[in-house]
C-alpha cells in the first residue's frame, strides 16, 4: 500500500534520527506558541466548565432537561454517544490498519489517530453513564456479585455496549501507551539532558527541570531501547492493533444492533450495522484529518507530515465517502423496492418532516464534500482536507440524530406522537463534551509527542538512507579507540557505542561466541533492531502465545459466564428467547476476549522485558542518553567471575572500521 502512494516524498530527505527527535520533542519540552496554546486552552476549559455546569443541572433535574420526556427517549445524548464512539472507532481503525498493513509512513498520522481514539472514547463513555436516571448506579450494568442475586441481561445489546465500552477504553489506552512508550523514553532523555544543563548552570528552574525528567521517566517505565525490548514491543504493538480492529467491529455491532434489533421502521434493517460502521470510520478519518492539519499548521511539522500523507488521507476520505453514498443509495433503493409502508414513511419523513434540515445536512455533508477529493490538488491542500473532514464530522452527527429522532418521534401509537425539538441543554451537553475532548487534546499536545518519533525514524532509515550514512561517517571520524580506564568499582560489564544498527549487529556477531554462559549480551538503540536478534539468540521469541491464551481464556470465560447465568442460574423468560440464546453472547464475549488479550499482552510486555526498571546499570554508560536518539550500544554484562573484560574489548577493537568497530568502548561500574 505504501509503495503505491504518490505525490512527493514521505519524509524530507535530509531528516536525521537526531533531527526528528529534536523537532518532535521540542513541542513538549519548550512549548512553542505558548500564548496561542493558553488562549486555546482557556476556550477549551470554558467549554469544560459548561460541561460541569450541565452535569450539575442534569444530576439535580434529571435527563428530562434534554427535552426527551416524550417518545424520543434517545435524543441528543445517545446521538452524541454514537458519534463519539464512531469517531473513536474510526481513528482506532485507521491507526491499527495502517500498522497491520506495515505502511511505513504512518508515523505522521498514527499518534494523532490513537490519541483521538482514546479521548473520543473518554467523551463517549460518559454519555451512557450520564443518560441514566441515577448515574451513580452505572455499575448495575456490569456482572458482579450483588445483593439482588440477579445477573445483567446478556441477551441485550445494552449490556453488550457496557462491556464494549470498557474493552474499547482498555484497548485504546493500551495501543496509545505502547506506541508512546519509546517516545516517552526519548522525551525523558532529552528532558534529562536539559535538567543536567540547568543543574550545571545553577538555573533557578533546575528542580522543575529534574522533576519533569523524572515524571517522563516514571511514565516511560525505565524503557532503555534494548533489542529484546524492541522485539517484544513491535509484536505487542501489532497484536494490540489486531485486537483493536476486531473490537471496532464488535463495538459498532453492539451500538447498531441496539437499533437494528428492534422492530422500529428505519432501524430494523440488516444494512444498518454496515452503514453505522462505514459512517463511524468515515467520521473518525474526518476528525483525524482535521486535527492532523491543525497540528501541522500550528507546530509547523511540514517536514514530517508531508503532502504525500495528505494525499493518503484524502484518498481514504474519498473511498469512505463513496461507501457512505452507497449505503444511503442502497437504503433508499431497498426500502422503496421491498420495504413496508412504515419504512417508506420514515424515509419520506426524513426528507420532508420536522427534522428535514438534519437529514439533508447528513446526506449532503457525508456524500458531497468528499467528491472534490477526486482532484489531486484538493487532496494535497491542507485547508481543503480539513474542511472536508469537518463537514464529514458534522454530517455523521446529523446522521445519528436523523436515525434516532425521526423514527422515535412517530412510533406505532398515535397518542405518543409528541413533538421533539433539539433543545439548549442537549446542545450544551454536547458542547461540553467537546470541551472535555479539546482540553485533553491540548494537554496531550503540550506534554507528549504529537508525531511518532520511532515511526518517523524508521521511515527516515528506509526512505533517506544517504543522510543516515553521512551521519554515520561523521560519527566515525570522531571515533576514539578503546579507553583504558581501570576502575575500582565492581564491574557491571563492557559497553561499546556504534553509529548504525549494521555496525552493532556485526559487533554482536563477533563477540557472541565469548562465554555465552557468563556474558549476557544486549543491544540498545532508538529504533527496533531486527538485525541484532540473530546474534543475540532471541529469534523466535514471541508474545503471541500470551495474547492468544489471554484472549481465549477471557472470551471463553465470559461466554461461559453468560451461558451459566442465562441458562442455569438466572432463568428468566424474556421476549420468548430460549434459555441458551448462544448467538447473543458472542458480541460481548469477543469484546471481553479482546480486552483480556490486551491485558495479557501488557503483562507479557512488562514481565518479558523485566520492566519497569527505573534504575539500571546501563544508564551508567557515558552518553547512553543518545541510545534514544542516534546511537546504538552494545552491552556485555558480567554474569560471574569468569568475565574477561579485556578479551571483549580486544575483540571489539579488532573489528574492521567498516564492519563493526565501535566508536567508543567503556567499562561500566555496577
Amino acid at each position, binding site marked *: 500500500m505504501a509503495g503505491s502512494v504518490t505525490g512527493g516524498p514521505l519524509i524530507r530527505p535530509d531528516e536525521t534520527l537526531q533531527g526528528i527527535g529534536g523537532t518532535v520533542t521540542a513541542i513538549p519540552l519548550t512549548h512553542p506558541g505558548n500564548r496561542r496554546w493558553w488562549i486555546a486552552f482557556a476556550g477549551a476549559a470554558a467549554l469544560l466548565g459548561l460541561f460541569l455546569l450541565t452535569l450539575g443541572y442534569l444530576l439535580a433535574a434529571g435527563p428530562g432537561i434534554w427535552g426527551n420526556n416524550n417518545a424520543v427517549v434517545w435524543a441528543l445524548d445517545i446521538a452524541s454517544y454514537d458519534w463519539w464512539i464512531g469517531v473513536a472507532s474510526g481513528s482506532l481503525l485507521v491507526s491499527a490498519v495502517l500498522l497491520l498493513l506495515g505502511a511505513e509512513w504512518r508515523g505522521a498520522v498514527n499518534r494523532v489517530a490513537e490519541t483521538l481514539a482514546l479521548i473520543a472514547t473518554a467523551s463517549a463513555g460518559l454519555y451512557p453513564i450520564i443518560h441514566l436516571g441515577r448515574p451513580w448506579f452505572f455499575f448495575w450494568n456490569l456482572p458482579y456479585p450483588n*445483593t439482588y*442475586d*440477579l445477573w445483567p441481561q446478556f441477551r441485550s445489546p445494552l449490556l453488550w455496549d457496557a462491556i464494549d465500552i470498557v474493552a474499547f477504553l482498555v484497548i485504546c489506552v493500551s495501543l496509545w501507551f505502547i506506541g508512546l512508550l519509546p517516545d516517552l523514553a526519548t522525551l*525523558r532523555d532529552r528532558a*534529562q539532558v536539559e535538567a543536567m544543563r540547568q543543574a550545571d548552570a545553577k538555573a533557578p528552574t533546575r528542580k522543575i527541570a529534574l522533576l519533569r525528567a523524572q515524571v517522563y*521517566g516514571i511514565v516511560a517505565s525505565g524503557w532503555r531501547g534494548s533489542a529484546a525490548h524492541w522485539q517484544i514491543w513491535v509484536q505487542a504493538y501489532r497484536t494490540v492493533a489486531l485486537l483493536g480492529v476486531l473490537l471496532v467491529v464488535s463495538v459498532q455491532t453492539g451500538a447498531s444492533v441496539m437499533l437494528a434489533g428492534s422492530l422500529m421502521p428505519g432501524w430494523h434493517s440488516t444494512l444498518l450495522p454496515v452503514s453505522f460502521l462505514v459512517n463511524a470510520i468515515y467520521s473518525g478519518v474526518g476528525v483525524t484529518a482535521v486535527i492532523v492539519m491543525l497540528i501541522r499548521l500550528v507546530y509547523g511539522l511540514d517536514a514530517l507530515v508531508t503532502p504525500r500523507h495528505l494525499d493518503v488521507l484524502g484518498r481514504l476520505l474519498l473511498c469512505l465517502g463513496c461507501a457512505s453514498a452507497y449505503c444511503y443509495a442502497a437504503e433508499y433503493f431497498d426500502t422503496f423496492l421491498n420495504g413496508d409502508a412504515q419504512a417508506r414513511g420514515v424515509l419520506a419523513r426524513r426528507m420532508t418532516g420536522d427534522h428535514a434540515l438534519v437529514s439533508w445536512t447528513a446526506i449532503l455533508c457525508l456524500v458531497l464534500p468528499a467528491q472534490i477529493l477526486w482532484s489531486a490538488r484538493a487532496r494535497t491542500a491542507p485547508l481543503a482536507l480539513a474542511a472536508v473532514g469537518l463537514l464529514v464530522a458534522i454530517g455523521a452527527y446529523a446522521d445519528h440524530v436523523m436515525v434516532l429522532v425521526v423514527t422515535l418521534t412517530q412510533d406505532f401509537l398515535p397518542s405518543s406522537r409528541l413533538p421533539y425539538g433539539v433543545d439548549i441543554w442537549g446542545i450544551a451537553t454536547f458542547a461540553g463534551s467537546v470541551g472535555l475532548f479539546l482540553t485533553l487534546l491540548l494537554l496531550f499536545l503540550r506534554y507528549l509527542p504529537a508525531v511518532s518519533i520511532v515511526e518517523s525514524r524508521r521511515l527516515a532509515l528506509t526512505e533517506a538512507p544517504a543522510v543516515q550514512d553521512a551521519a554515520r561517517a561523521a560519527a566515525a571520524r570522531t571515533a576514539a579507540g578503546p579507553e583504558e580506564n581501570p576502575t575500582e568499582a565492581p564491574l557491571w560489564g563492557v559497553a561499546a557505542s556504534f553509529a548504525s544498527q549494521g555496525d552493532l549487529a556485526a559487533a554482536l556477531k563477533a563477540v557472541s561466541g565469548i562465554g555465552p554462559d557468563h556474558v549476557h549480551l544486549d543491544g540498545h538503540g532508538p529504533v527496533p533492531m531486527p538485525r541484532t536478534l540473530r546474534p543475540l539468540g532471541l529469534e523466535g521469541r514471541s508474545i503471541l502465545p500470551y495474547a492468544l491464551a489471554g484472549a481465549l481464556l477471557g472470551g471463553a470465560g465470559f461466554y461461559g459466564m453468560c451461558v451459566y447465568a442465562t441458562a442455569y442460574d438466572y432463568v428468566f423468560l424474556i421476549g420468548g428467547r430460549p434459555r441458551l440464546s448462544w448467538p447473543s453472547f458472542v458480541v460481548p464475549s469477543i469484546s471481553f476476549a479482546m480486552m483480556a488479550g490486551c491485558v495479557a499482552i501488557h503483562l507479557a510486555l512488562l514481565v518479558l522485558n523485566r520492566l519497569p526498571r*527505573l*534504575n539500571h546499570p546501563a544508564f551508567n*554508560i*557515558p552518553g547512553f542518553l543518545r541510545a534514544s536518539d542516534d546511537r546504538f550500544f552494545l552491552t556485555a554484562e558480567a554474569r560471574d567471575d569468569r568475565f574477561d573484560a579485556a578479551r571483549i574489548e580486544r575483540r571489539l577493537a579488532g573489528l574492521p572500521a567498516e564492519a563493526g568497530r565501535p566508536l567508543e568502548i567503556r567499562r561500566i561500574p555496577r
Partner: protein
Amino acid sequence: MAQLFTPGADAIYRLALMTGVACLVGLPVLAAGIVRSNYVTGVGVAPAQPVPFSHKHHSGELGIDCRYCHTTVEKEATAGIPPTHTCMTCHSQIWTGSDMLKPVRDSYAQDKPLEWTRLNKLPQYVYYNHSVHVTKGIGCSTCHGDVTSMQMTYRANAFEMKFCLDCHRAPEKYVRTPDQVWNMTWKPPADQATLGPKLVAQNHIRGGARLTECGICHR
C-alpha cells in the same frame, strides 16, 4: 553518570504499582463487604424503643399468639402494629404502677400513639402482602427469625432482593403445614423434600418462572 533515579526508586515504584493493583481489587471487595455488613443492614441491632417491649417475655414465656397483637397478618398486606389499647387490655389490670410502662399509660391517657422505631422496612417500589404469604404456608420466623427469643426486638434478616428471590425461586424448601406457620422454632422436617412440593401444589403456589417475574413484587 546519568542515573535519573536512585536504586531504591525501583522498589518504591513497584510497590506503588502493586498497591494500585491491590486497591483495584481490594476496594470493591471492601465496599461489597461494608454494604453487606450488619452495620449497614442493621441485622441483629436492637434500637431503643419508647417502651422496652420484650417479645421473648410476651410471646415466648407467656405464649401470647402473634395474631393477638398483629391482627391483620392473615387478611391484609400489613401485619399491623397494635394500638395502645391492645397493650392496655392487660396492663390496665397488671403492672399498673410500673415506671417502665408509664409511656403506655400516657399514650392511652393522651390518646397519642406510641412511636415505635420501625425495624423491617421495604422500599416503596416493592409490593409485599403478609396475608398471602402466611395463608399459603410461609411462617413468621422465615423472615422475622425466632422473635420469641428476642428480649429486645431486632431485624433478623437483611431484606435484600437476594433474600426474597431465594424463596421465590424454590418455595418448596420453605413452605409449611398451616399448624406450623406460627411455630417460631420451625426447622424443615426430615420429609420436607417430599412434603414441600406437595404443599406447593396444594396451595397453588406457582414457583420458579411465575414468582420470579419482575411484576410480582415491582408492580
